[in-house]
């Protein structure tokens, strides 16, 4: 069996080394790249993310990342966003009162979590929908989260480009937010699979199996 080829998008955000090594360990051939052609042609594109929405969008635009993601999705080619790499897939983010436009692949607004203690930091559980491929065999596992912002309301109302989005939720304090989405070729996690031990590696394997 040939190993799937994964491009990890280098746009100046994220724990790139950890992301690369984890996807390698999960069984892929990985290239860290800011090159649009490499990112377009890989079997899978991983968009990592650590930090702030606004600076991530700037970094993404600097490497033409918004268009790379858009084109891959039009062609039905898999993309996985992690943490802020998930958040920037939504319509917009609000940080410190500043609104920043996201990629707009999904509607919805990324907002600060309303909890007594923020960031939400540590290992938490997930509630995947029936038949989730991302969480197959992992429904009872915990994953590592570290974030202050999230999506509270899943508001996909217009006819989606791909059918049947699978939305996974997580509870923290009084908050409930979207912790993962599987939607055709576009998958995303609010937590960090590359930092979630064996469970995280198995989730990445579930993604690689779709490539």
């Amino acid at each position, binding site marked *: 069996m040939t190993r799937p080829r994964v491009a990890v998008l280098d746009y100046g955000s994220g*724990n*790139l*080394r*950890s992301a690369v*090594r*984890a996807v390698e*360990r999960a069984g892929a051939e990985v290239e860290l790249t800011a090159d649009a052609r490499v990112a377009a042609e890989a079997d899978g594109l991983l968009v990592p993310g*650590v*930090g*702030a929405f606004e*600076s991530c969008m700037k970094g993404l635009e600097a490497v033409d990342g918004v268009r790379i993601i858009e084109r891959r999705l039009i062609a039905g080619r898999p993309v996985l966003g992690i943490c802020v790499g998930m958040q920037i897939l939504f319509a917009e983010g609000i940080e410190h009162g500043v609104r920043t436009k996201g990629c707009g692949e999904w509607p919805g607004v990324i907002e600060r979590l309303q909890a*007594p*203690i*923020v*960031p*939400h*930091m*540590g*290992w*938490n*559980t997930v509630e995947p929908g029936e038949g989730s491929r991302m969480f197959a065999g992992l429904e009872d596992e*915990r994953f*590592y*989260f*570290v*974030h*202050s912002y999230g999506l509270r309301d899943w508001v996909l109302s217009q006819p989606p480009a791909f059918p049947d989005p699978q939305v996974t939720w997580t*509870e*923290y*304090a009084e908050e409930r937010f979207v912790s993962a989405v599987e939607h055709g070729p576009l998958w995303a996690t609010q937590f*960090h699979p*590359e*930092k*979630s*031990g*064996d469970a*995280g*590696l198995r989730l990445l394997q579930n993604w690689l199996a779709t490539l």
Partner: protein
Amino acid sequence: MSLSVRVIPCLDVDNGRVVKGVNFVDLRDAGDPVEMAKVYDAEGADELTFLDITASSGNRSTTFDVVGRTADQVFIPLTVGGGVRTPDDVDRLLRAGADKVGINTAAIDRPEVIAEIAHRFGSQVLVLSVDARRSAEQPSGFEVTTHGGRRSAGIDAVEWARRATELGAGEVLLNSMDADGTKDGFDLEMIRAVRDVTQVPLIASGGAGRLEHFPEAIEAGADAVLAASVFHFGDLTIGQVKETLRAAGHRVR
């Protein structure tokens, strides 16, 4: 179901080697931080903290190498503290494989560096490390120390934690210099005092000796517990600590 409390072993690393009492029976090389990180990962550690105590900054490249080799093999969060003075130091550690960085003395010398780091990398990347001890000189009864607890920094520890988290520190690692090494338990009053004035996750450190000490720290308001020697010497295992926390009604991974 909800967030679990974290159990974090801490490794003091000097020139690429773990120091401060290590007595692992099943390791080929008990001084190799990568080997120890793997063992702790296998035992269920929720995160790992490396404290780089390398005296001369000329040897920081060794630290980057250790962080990188660990991150290549251990897929849980890695916090690295020691010698962090500027946002560029943070950048280098993150590129080497760290997920979070700890800052201590540099933030006392120049608190604005907290805001600078948080602005560039987000609060979630920055752990404020506070070495504190009891002192009648300060309003809260606790003061910040430097130089491994030997010198007073002349500031109130509780007020410092409050201010630093307002400036953008995303987590507080609260180390009791009085309790450190005593194995008599965490300084619960100090944990409560800092919990009361901060809204970020709080890691309790210093004084862990027996299993029952860990739930006490959580009940006092800590979100995570950190220990070094009790794990390094095999007095307690991470599994035992988690079992004790679970039995006390706390969620663990």
